[in-house]
């Protein structure tokens, strides 16, 4: 136990400033991403059960509540992706002699790969 007057952060510390609020949003995002994965697994299960079960489940997924849920989950997944892509220059430091490779050159390829894979998936889905 530390001696002296102990000043604790209390339960509302995450409302003190924007950066703290964002970290809590990022923590909360895991709930939505986990839920999305559960719905995806159920979808795979319905495929196995047959066309009728699959169509019924698709109707459920097209309900307004589920559409809102997916938009929120997508927003959280995007937030997560940007956070971790921006982290990569901190975790991977490449040096040429005394010079450090610019962080954008480490984070950039992640974004390029993201856009490329997204475009490829969109092309497959929409063609």
């Amino acid at each position: 136990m530390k001696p002296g007057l102990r000043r604790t952060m209390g339960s509302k510390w995450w409302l003190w400033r924007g950066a703290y609020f964002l970290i809590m949003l990022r923590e909360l995002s895991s709930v939505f991403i986990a839920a999305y994965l559960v719905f995806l697994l159920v979808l795979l299960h319905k495929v196995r059960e047959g066309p009728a079960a699959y169509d019924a489940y698709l109707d459920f997924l097209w309900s307004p509540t589920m559409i809102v849920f997916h938009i929120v989950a997508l927003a959280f997944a995007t937030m997560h992706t940007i956070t971790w892509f921006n982290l990569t220059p901190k975790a991977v430091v490449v040096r040429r002699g005394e010079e450090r490779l610019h962080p954008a050159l480490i984070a950039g390829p992640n974004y390029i790969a993201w856009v490329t894979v997204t475009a490829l998936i969109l092309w497959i889905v929409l063609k």
Partner: protein
Amino acid sequence: MARTIKLEVFRYRPEIDDKPTFKSYEVPFREDWVVLDALNHIKDTVDGTLSFRWSCRMGVCGSCGMMVNGFPRLTCAAFLRDYYPHPIRVEPLVNFPVERDLVINMSDFLRKLKSVKPWIIRKEETPVSEGEYLQTPAELARYKQFSMCINCMLCYAACPVYGREEDFIGPAALALAQRYNLDSRDQGGQERRAIAFSDEGIWECTFVGECTTVCPKNVDPAGAIQLGKVTAAIDYFKLLLPWGRKT
């Protein structure tokens, strides 16, 4: 009429106060004054009982860190002109016990700092007669940023993980562990690993990143911790290899 600015200063004298209070002081406003100048003005001319730490007045000693309007700042680098005409609230660094007024107890930080062995460890010391341990500029560049830490503890006041988990080794100590791990002259990485790569070390960090934001010396403790995580992860996977357990 001479301009003034109001400072709301955290006061706590354990021998007479049951709980902390804020006391307001009107101090002269000068363009070239920092918050530390205003505190010294109060101590010298208004209220000599006010206690706070300071030393160099030039962002080197790391003594004068306090919460200025809720943000951890070196008060020698926080200009009154950036707050004028609004009042400035000065408090001791959060997440630390308060000894008196703006003075915190830093024992916990010092204990954790020592635990990561922030000095060059050699398996076998070579005699002085054999000369210095030489290092190239490129080898120096690998750790130089992390060596700029002045132990001001602003990063601990900005870190909600340290605020919630007393056992967390914390940003500055982990950055300094990384500073020595990256030093080509050092051979103590394995010794530091037990503390720095433990659950209370790098793995406690959830990458809030505020330690890096508030650091007055651009040390980037969050970056140091992420580098440590990569090293620890690579070490773990090496252990999974058939020949990895020998090392």
